[in-house]
């Protein structure tokens, strides 16, 4: 569940970055602010279970990659090879950190259990 919170935070970030760019009425600005609050709520929820450094880096990376992809698919921005490489690097990093931190979490649990005995 904690990883889903990171994902939600990054998805909501894409919307509020678009909001920051295109809002020009009070309602749109209000919506943008609500989305900023939502994404930080999800970050805090994720930090309850995962290391904050991981959460913040994944949130930043997934958001940056997501915005570039949304720009290319919906706003007609050109996607260069360099951009694709950086998006790929982020994806490798996110998958890697998820796989390795799952191992570490289970080790941490074993540790706590032994400590409790």
């Amino acid at each position, binding site marked *: 569940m904690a990883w889903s919170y990171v994902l939600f935070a990054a998805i909501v970030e894409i919307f509020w970055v678009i909001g920051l760019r295109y809002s020009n009425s009070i309602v749109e600005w209000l919506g943008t602010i609500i989305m900023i609050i939502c994404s*930080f709520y999800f*970050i*805090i929820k994720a*930090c*309850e279970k995962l*290391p*904050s*450094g*991981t959460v*913040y*880096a*994944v949130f*930043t*990376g997934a*958001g*940056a*990659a997501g915005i*570039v992809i949304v720009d290319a698919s919906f706003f007609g921005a050109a996607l*260069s090879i*360099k*951009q694709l*490489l*950086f*998006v*790929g*690097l*982020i994806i*490798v*990093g*996110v998958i*890697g*950190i998820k796989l*390795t*931190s799952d191992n*570490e979490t289970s080790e941490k649990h074993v540790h706590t259990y032994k400590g409790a005995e």
Partner: protein
Amino acid sequence: MAWIYLIIASFGEIFGVIGINYYLQRKTFQRLLFVILPFGVGFVFLSMAMQEIPLGTAYAIWTGLGAAGAVLMGMIFFKESTSWKRIFFLLCIITGAVGLKILH
């Protein structure tokens, strides 16, 4: 001066992430302010820095310094893992994010 604003903005992110840990230890409204204020002040300084430094450059440096700083603080103050695998994959993510924002 713009570069100093940019560094202050990055520290906003770093202290914001420390604030999250602090808030999670005890969820009070006062502690929530330690999350809101640093991020809020950080954004203000980022926009001030962007008046002189090109948008892409400012955004990239802010992202990189902030995320790397947040990771380091987690390791120093909150006992987060310092395994080389974790550092390697975090570096991939941060490099990717900085790269995208420079290109933007």
